[in-house]
C-alpha cells in the first residue's frame, strides 16, 4: 500500500491555479447562439394564452421553444424504475410552481435572447397555491395534481417499514419521548450555475457539453426528450464547478439540445443565478415526527415516525429520496420495534431533489437531535445513550439487514475523544462486538421474534 495515508496533490490543481481548467461556459464554437428562458411568474394556475410570434419575428432570434417541440415533453427522471413521469419539460396548459419553464429562446446574444423572452405573451388564470405540507391530508386544500397531494407508493400512499411489536414497546415504556423536526429547503448554489452547450453535428448527431454530475443518466434523459437512441448523442463532461447534488437534474441540457436542433446552430444555455435559486431544484423541506418508547435506564424499546417530504410540484427523485430517508429513520442505533411511515407530498414549491446525502441528512439531523432530547428527559449522558443503543455486530436494522461491521461505536468514541469528553471505562472500552451481558437486555434477545408475534395478531 503506497497510496493510503499518503498526501497527493490535486490531480487538477495546477490547471485550477493557472486558470486553465475549462468548464462548460469556457467553451465557445463558431456560430454559437445563446439561450434565455421564460418562466412562470405565479405559483399555480392555468395558462390561457401563449403567444411567441413577436419573439420569433425579432431580428437575431433563431428558435423559440415551447411544449410542442420535444418528441416527448413529459419524461420522468425515475420512469425506468417504475415511477410515473409527470413533469413537462415546458409547461403546456398549466403551471404548478413559480419559475416553471414555459418557453426558451435561442438568439445571437444573451441580450437579444432576453429581449425576445420579454416579448413572449402569456396569460394565466391564477389558482390558490398549496404550500404547507402539514396540511397534506386536508381535502379542503388546493390539489396540486389531479391525483391529489400525496404520491402513491403502490400499494400504499406512503412508504413504510415495520419490524417487531411497536405496541408492546410503547406499553413497556417508562417514558415516551416525542419530537418534531423541520429541516428547510436549501439551494445547492454551486458557484458555477448549470450550463450546457449543444452542437448539432453534420451527420445529425448531437454533441452536448454538460455540467452534469451524472453523465449517462443525463444522456438518457436528453435522448428521451429528443426521441433519439443513445448513439445519436455524444455527451462531454469534465470539471464541474461544484454540484452538491444539484447537477443531477438535467435541467439545461434538454433545452440547449432541443433549441440547437430547431435552430440548426450550436446553443449555449448558461442558467442565471436567479434561475438557480428560483427555478432549479433544491434540497427538500421535511417535516419529521419521532416518538420513542424509552426505558428509565436508557434503552430505546420502540420508535414510531411520520415523515412528510416536500416534493414540490412534480415527483422528480422524491419517491426514491423519501424511501432512502425512511430506511435511515432509526439512525445508527438498534431499535427492534419500529413503525415508520414516510409520505411524498406535492406542493406548489419548486421541485426538490438531491443535495449532499439525499434524504439522509434530514433524518440524521432529526434522529441525532432526538437522541439528545431523550438523554435530557432521562437525565443521562447523551454519549452513553448513543453507545448503549448503537449498532453492534449481529444487530438487525429496521429493514432486517444483519450488521456485520457497524461503525457506530468506534465513531462515537472517536467523537468523544475529539471533543475531550471523558467516558466511564465501561463505555470508553466498548467495541462493536456482539451483544452480551448488560448490553443484551431482554428486548434485544430476539430481534426477529417479535415480528412474527406482530404479524400473527
Amino acid at each position, binding site marked *: 500500500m*503506497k*497510496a493510503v495515508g*499518503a*498526501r*497527493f*496533490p*490535486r*490531480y*487538477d*490543481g*495546477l*490547471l*485550477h*491555479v*493557472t*486558470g486553465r*481548467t*475549462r*468548464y462548460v*461556459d*469556457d467553451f*465557445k464554437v463558431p456560430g454559437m447562439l445563446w439561450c434565455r428562458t421564460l418562466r412562470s411568474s405565479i405559483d399555480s394556475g392555468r395558462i390561457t394564452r401563449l403567444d411567441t410570434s413577436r419573439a420569433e419575428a425579432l431580428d437575431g432570434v433563431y428558435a423559440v421553444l415551447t411544449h410542442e417541440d420535444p418528441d416527448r415533453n413529459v419524461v420522468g427522471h425515475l420512469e425506468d424504475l417504475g415511477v410515473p413521469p409527470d413533469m413537462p419539460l415546458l409547461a403546456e396548459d398549466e403551471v404548478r410552481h413559480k419559475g416553471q419553464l414555459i418557453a426558451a429562446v435561442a438568439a445571437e446574444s444573451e441580450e437579444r435572447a432576453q429581449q425576445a423572452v420579454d416579448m413572449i405573451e402569456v396569460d394565466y388564470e391564477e389558482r390558490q397555491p398549496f404550500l404547507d405540507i402539514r396540511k397534506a391530508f386536508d381535502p379542503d386544500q388546493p390539489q396540486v395534481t389531479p391525483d391529489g397531494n400525496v404520491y402513491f407508493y403502490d400499494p400504499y400512499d406512503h412508504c413504510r417499514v415495520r419490524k417487531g411489536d411497536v405496541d408492546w414497546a410503547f406499553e413497556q415504556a417508562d417514558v415516551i419521548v416525542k419530537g418534531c423536526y423541520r429541516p428547510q429547503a436549501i439551494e*445547492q*448554489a*454551486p*458557484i*458555477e*450555475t448549470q450550463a450546457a452547450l449543444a452542437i448539432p453535428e453534420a451527420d445529425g448527431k448531437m454533441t452536448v457539453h454538460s455540467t452534469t454530475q451524472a453523465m449517462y443518466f443525463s444522456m438518457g434523459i436528453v435522448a428521451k426528450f429528443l426521441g433519439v437512441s443513445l448513439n445519436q448523442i455524444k455527451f462531454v463532461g469534465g*470539471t*464541474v*464547478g*461544484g454540484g*452538491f447534488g444539484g447537477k443531477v437534474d438535467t435541467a439545461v441540457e434538454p433545452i440547449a439540445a432541443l433549441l440547437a436542433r430547431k435552430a440548426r446552430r450550436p446553443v449555449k444555455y*448558461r442558467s*442565471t*443565478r436567479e434561475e438557480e435559486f428560483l427555478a432549479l431544484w433544491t434540497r427538500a423541506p421535511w417535516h419529521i415526527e419521532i416518538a420513542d418508547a424509552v426505558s428509565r435506564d436508557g434503552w430505546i424499546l420502540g420508535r414510531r415516525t411520520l415523515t412528510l417530504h416536500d416534493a414540490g410540484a412534480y415527483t422528480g427523485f422524491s419517491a426514491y429520496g423519501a424511501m432512502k430517508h425512511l430506511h435511515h429513520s432509526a439512525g445508527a442505533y438498534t431499535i427492534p420495534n419500529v413503525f415508520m411511515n414516510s409520505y411524498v407530498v406535492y406542493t406548489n414549491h419548486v421541485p426538490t431533489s438531491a443535495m449532499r446525502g439525499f434524504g439522509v441528512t434530514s433524518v440524521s439531523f432529526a434522529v441525532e437531535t432526538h437522541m439528545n432530547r431523550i438523554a435530557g428527559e432521562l437525565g443521562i449522558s447523551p454519549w452513553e445513550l448513543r453507545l448503549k443503543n448503537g449498532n453492534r455486530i449481529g444487530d438487525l436494522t429496521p429493514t432486517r439487514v444483519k450488521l456485520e461491521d457497524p461503525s457506530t461505536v468506534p465513531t462515537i468514541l472517536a467523537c468523544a475523544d475529539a471533543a475531550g469528553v471523558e467516558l466511564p471505562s465501561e463505555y470508553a472500552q466498548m467495541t462493536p462486538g456482539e451483544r452480551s451481558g448488560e448490553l443484551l437486555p431482554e428486548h434485544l434477545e430476539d430481534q426477529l421474534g417479535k415480528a412474527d408475534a406482530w404479524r400473527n395478531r
Partner: protein
Amino acid sequence: MRLMVNGAEQEVDSGPLASLLHVLREELDITSPKAGCQQGGCGACTVLVDGKPQRSCLTPLASVEGAMITTVEGLGDAGELTAVQQAFYAKYGAQCGYCTSGMMLAATALIDATNGDGVTRQEIEEVMGGHLCRCTGYVKIIEAVEAASRGETFDLEELRRAGTAGGEETMILDTGGQS
C-alpha cells in the same frame, strides 16, 4: 477602446457599458474570471484593476479605459507560479476551482499591498469575505493565503513526485521467480 490586459495592449469593440467580465471572456477569450452570479455577489469574476481587486461583472468597460487589468492568466504559468498560486496548489486551497481565480487575485492584492508583513488571519478573512466557496469551508483557502503571506514556497516537483511515486512495490502476483 484600449485596455492593458496582463501586460498586453488590447483594442476592444464592446460598447462603453459592456461589463469588463463580458469583454474579457467573450471578446478576449480570457476565461479565468467566471460568471458566477453577474450581480457582484460571489466574487468569482474578480480581476485586478491597477492592482486593486474589482468585480468585473459590475465594472463597465468605460470606467477602466487605459487601466492595467490582471487576471490569473497574467500571474504565473505552470513552472513559474507566484507564491499565491503555489500555496493554493500545495495547501489544497482549490477544490472545484470555480472560485479560485477570484480568491487568488484578492489574496495577491492583499499580499502585494502589505508585502505580506504582519498580515493577520482576521485581515485575510476580511479581504476574502466577499468571495464565496461552496466546496472547501474556507479553512484550506485561508491557510493557503497565510502561507503565501509568509512567503512560503513549495517544491512543486517534489509535490508532483509525491503524487506518482512510492518506492518499490511489493508484488503479490506470482511471476515464477522472474523479476
